[in-house]
Each structure stands twice: as C-alpha cells, then as structure tokens.
C-alpha cells in the first residue's frame, strides 16, 4: 500500500495543516468510546457509592421508590432471552448458510439471501409491532397471558438470524473449492462432507456469527420491550412475562431521578460490558486465519 504520507513534496504548509486537522478529527472520533464510558461511569457513580455493588444482587426486590434496587431478575431475563434466541438462531442460521451456499439452486439461493438481507434491514420497532399484534395473541390463545419469554425469544431469533446466516455464509464462501474436490474424490457422502470438512473449516466464521448474534440479542431493546410483558420477575418457565435490562432502562429512564437514575446507568454499564466482550471475541476471530492449511 502506498500512503499519501510518503509523498516527498509534503513540506507544503497546507499539507501540515491538513495532516493535523485530520489527526484531530480522528482523535475525536477515536475518543468517542472513552467519552461514552466516562459519562456512563460518572452518572452511575452515585449508585455505586450510596447503594453499593452488592445491593444490586442481594436486595429484596426492584422497587426504586422504596430504595430497593435488585437487578438480578432483569439480568436473568436478558440472559434467558438471549440464550433461547441463540439456541434457535445458531443451528438454523448455519443451516440457512449451508442452504444458500451448497444446497439450493442458484435462483433460490439468491432469492433466499435477498429475503434474509431484507429481514436484517427491518427496524426493531417493526418486529415489536408484529410481535405485539400477531405473535403475542397467538401465544395467549395457547398459554395465557401471552407476553412472555417465549415471545421475546422468537422475536430475537428472527432479528439475529440474518447476522448469523450472512456471516457464516461469507465464511463458507471462502472455503477453497479444492477441499470439496478432495472430499468428493475420497468418496465422502454429502452429509459427512458438511460435518467433517465444511463445518470444521468454517469454525471461526461460525463463532464470529454467533458472538455477533449474542451481542445484538443482549443489546436489543424495543422489540423485546414490546412483546415480553415487562413484569419484574425471574422467569420460571417459557410463558412467564419477563423484563430485560434494556427494557428496564427504556421504561423507567423517563421519570427516574437520583439513585434510581444512577442504577439505570449501572445497568447500562453492565450491558455495555457484556456486549463489548462478545464484540471483541467476534473481532478477534474475524482477524484470525480461517484455515492455516490454505497457506
């Protein structure tokens, strides 16, 4: 790569000016993350000081008006919803990617890919609307009350499916054709080729997709707020209404004051921490070699 900075005629004043202003803009953009963290910590600090970290896990209930700040029901809500969605979306996303890459006739593969791309572009609030009007009444007819962990899982599943499918499919597309030719020459059946050659080769891509899916599911707010019922309780089965950390912030931020507000920022920090871990794991995998043997 030839860089503009290697240009030997860079002694013009305008060049120095350009370089410094670009550096400044880049510094601003780069420090945005720091600014976000600083502001979250600053707003959350009073809660750490006056309520204490342990109270978020040991208080009797979530009742900010009575100075009770138990966050664990919301944490469980978030974790169960994410876990359920990923358990559905990971296998089906991988199957969808296999379908696009290997199984479908070209026109169907293109059409299905378009459909998945379309799904990835639908705003979360529209998923929420559909879930609220269509999915929740369906569940209510089967197992009242309707707004439930199950509704949240199904909606999240639809939302993270495109992420997983598209990332996995991109990594399947990078598998060298020679691998498949060799496997064919060895007389492997279609199924064992998928299980023993294709999936192990695409492992990094598959995990990248799953991690990105988890990150998206953890941070999702609007759709889950609209279909989950938002009752503060640790869910005991699939049809219990739940409230997630994100929904809790969205619901109470408008009127929260003092320590209550600070606690919402604490849950924001908690969310950000969880999401960032998964995003970084995904980024780390993305940069890793897909398969060393190709070199």
């Amino acid at each position, binding site marked *: *790569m*030839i*860089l*503009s900075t290697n*240009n*030997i*005629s*860079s002694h*013009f004043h*305008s*060049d120095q000016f*350009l370089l410094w202003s670009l550096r400044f*803009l*880049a510094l*601003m*953009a780069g420090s*945005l*993350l720091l600014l*976000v963290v600083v*502001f*979250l910590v600053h707003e959350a600090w009073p809660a750490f000081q006056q309520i204490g970290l342990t109270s978020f896990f040991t208080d009797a209930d979530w009742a900010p008006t009575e100075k009770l700040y138990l966050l664990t029901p919301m944490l469980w809500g978030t974790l169960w919803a994410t876990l359920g969605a990923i358990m559905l979306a990971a296998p*089906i996303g991988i*199957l*969808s990617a296999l*379908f696009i890459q*290997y*199984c479908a006739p070209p026109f169907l593969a293109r059409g*299905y890919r378009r459909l*998945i791309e379309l*799904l990835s*572009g*639908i*705003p*979360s*609030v529209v*998923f929420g*609307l*559909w879930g*609220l*009007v*269509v999915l929740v009444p369906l569940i209510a007819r089967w197992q009242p009350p309707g707004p439930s962990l199950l509704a949240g899982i199904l909606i999240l599943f*639809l939302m993270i499916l495109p992420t997983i499918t598209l990332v996995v499919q991109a990594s399947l597309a990078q598998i060298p054709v020679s691998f*498949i030719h060799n496997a064919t020459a060895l007389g492997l*059946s*279609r*199924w064992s*080729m*998928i299980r023993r050659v294709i999936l192990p080769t695409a492992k990094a891509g598959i995990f990248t997709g799953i991690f990105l899916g988890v990150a998206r599911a*953890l*941070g*999702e*707010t609007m759709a889950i707020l*609209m279909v989950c019922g938002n009752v503060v309780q640790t869910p005991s089965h699939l049809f219990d209404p739940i409230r997630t950390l*994100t929904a809790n*912030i*969205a619901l109470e*931020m408008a009127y929260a004051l003092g320590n209550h507000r600070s606690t919402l920022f604490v849950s924001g920090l908690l969310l950000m921490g969880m*999401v960032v871990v*998964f995003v970084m794991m995904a*980024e780390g995998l993305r940069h890793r070699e897909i398969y060393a043997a190709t070199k």
Partner: protein
Amino acid sequence: MLPQSKSVQDHCGAAIIWSSTGLISFGVLWLLGDLLWHGWSQLSWSFLFSSPENAGREGGIGPILISTSLILGVCMIVAWPMGLGTAIFLAEFTQDDHRFGRLIRGSLDVLAGVPSIVFGLFGNALFCQALGLGFSILSGGLTLACMVLPILIRTTEESFRAITSDQRLSAAALGFSTSTTVGSILLPAAIPGLLVGSILGIGRAMAETAALIFTSGYVDRMPESLLDSGRALSIHIYDLAMNVAGGNPNAYATAVVLVGLLIIINLAASWIAEKWTTLNQLPT
C-alpha cells in the same frame, strides 16, 4: 456444488435444511405480508402530510416526517466531516501496524457494537443534561451521529483504500502537494463510497428507536426549531402500538412508510455500489 445425495443421512440432512429454510421464508413473508396487509389500506397522500390527531389514532404523520428528517439532517451534518476526516486519516496516513491508527480503529469497532439503548443513556447524560439541550431534535441528532460514525468511517475508509496506487504515484510525480492529491484526486474517486456509507448510516439512524426515546423525545407537534422536541417515525410506531389503545392501524401505516423508506435507501446504496465497482473495473 456438493456431490449428489446417496445415503439416508444425506436425505435427512437435505430434508432438515429445506424445511428450516422453508419455515424461515414463511415467517419473513408472513411478517412482511402482515405489514402490507394492515398498513397499505391506511396509506394516502393526506396521511403523509397531515398532523396526527387524537394521540395519533387519526390524522397523519406530517410533523413526524419533518422531525425525522431534521434529526437525520443534524446527524449527518455532524457525522460527515468527522467521518470523512477520520476515514482519510486512517486510509491515507496510517499503515496497518500504525499504533495510533490501530487504536482508533479498535475503538471504533467496539463503538459499533455498543447497544443503542446505551447510546440513549449517553446522549441523555451528555447532550440533554450536561450541555443543557434538553429533549430536542439537536440532542437526538447528535446522539445518532455518535452511533452511525463507525459505519460511516468504515465504508469511507474502504473506498479510499480501493483507489489504485497509480493515482497517488501519478499525483506525486506531477509534484502535487498531499492536500491537492487528497482533495482533487482521491476525494472525487472516493465519493461513491462516501455516498454508500452515508446512505447506510442514514438507514441505521432512521431505524433507530431506543437511542431516541430519551434524547429527542415524544412531542408530535410540528417542530419550530432544532431545540424543540420532535418525534421520529420509529418512536411514533412504538408509542401508537404500546401506549395508545386503537393506535394499531396508524402504527401499521407508519411502519409501512418506514420500511418502504429503508428499502429504497438500501436499494440506492447497492445500486451505487454496483455502478461504482463496474466503473472501477474499466481499464484506465
């Protein structure tokens, strides 16, 4: 392509793959069909231009469209120079192992993953409270600008990196200064990429709800200035569906408008990207 199926396992595998993709297609088409079915009949020109009445149950979305475009306008005006500057810096002045560049890239990657509700908290704390802008279009737009910056920078940086080195070498051979090279040679060549990045950024900003609830607010009147609170399309859908009994028909209609706009935006982006690749492939 894979070899023809032979064993029982192959047939089972194929059956599982075909049935699960069939199920997904059915689900997606159901969602879209439901949206069109309920929303399309409500749509009319007067719906697009009139004010919401009776908490949005009746009337249209005129002021909401205006607020949405103002929020997006603020967002892009702020994000553009910062995104462009950072992208040029990363693409033209840093190598892959440049420490400062790597730090910025890493920080932007993480920023891209931060959930939108956290941006909402941040925007509320910084713009609404610390800077005293209150619930306003300005606060909402600035919050969204922080959110779309990573995607804008990544696309623009890629478009600068895609420019062949010949152009930089020729410019240097002609004795151009770096700023002339960047401004008159590289920038025009990267404009399609910049455009695609901006369009994708606008798309992401338009689909956003959680970051706006407590930054730009709920007010559905026609905004008089950027310091007024303004309701975005996505918030209108949320409010009608959740808080207004009997608001569903208009929520559906608004959702059709929003999804329609997003589809147009994505088609435009992929059209430009396609044009641009064919242009770049021409012999020079």
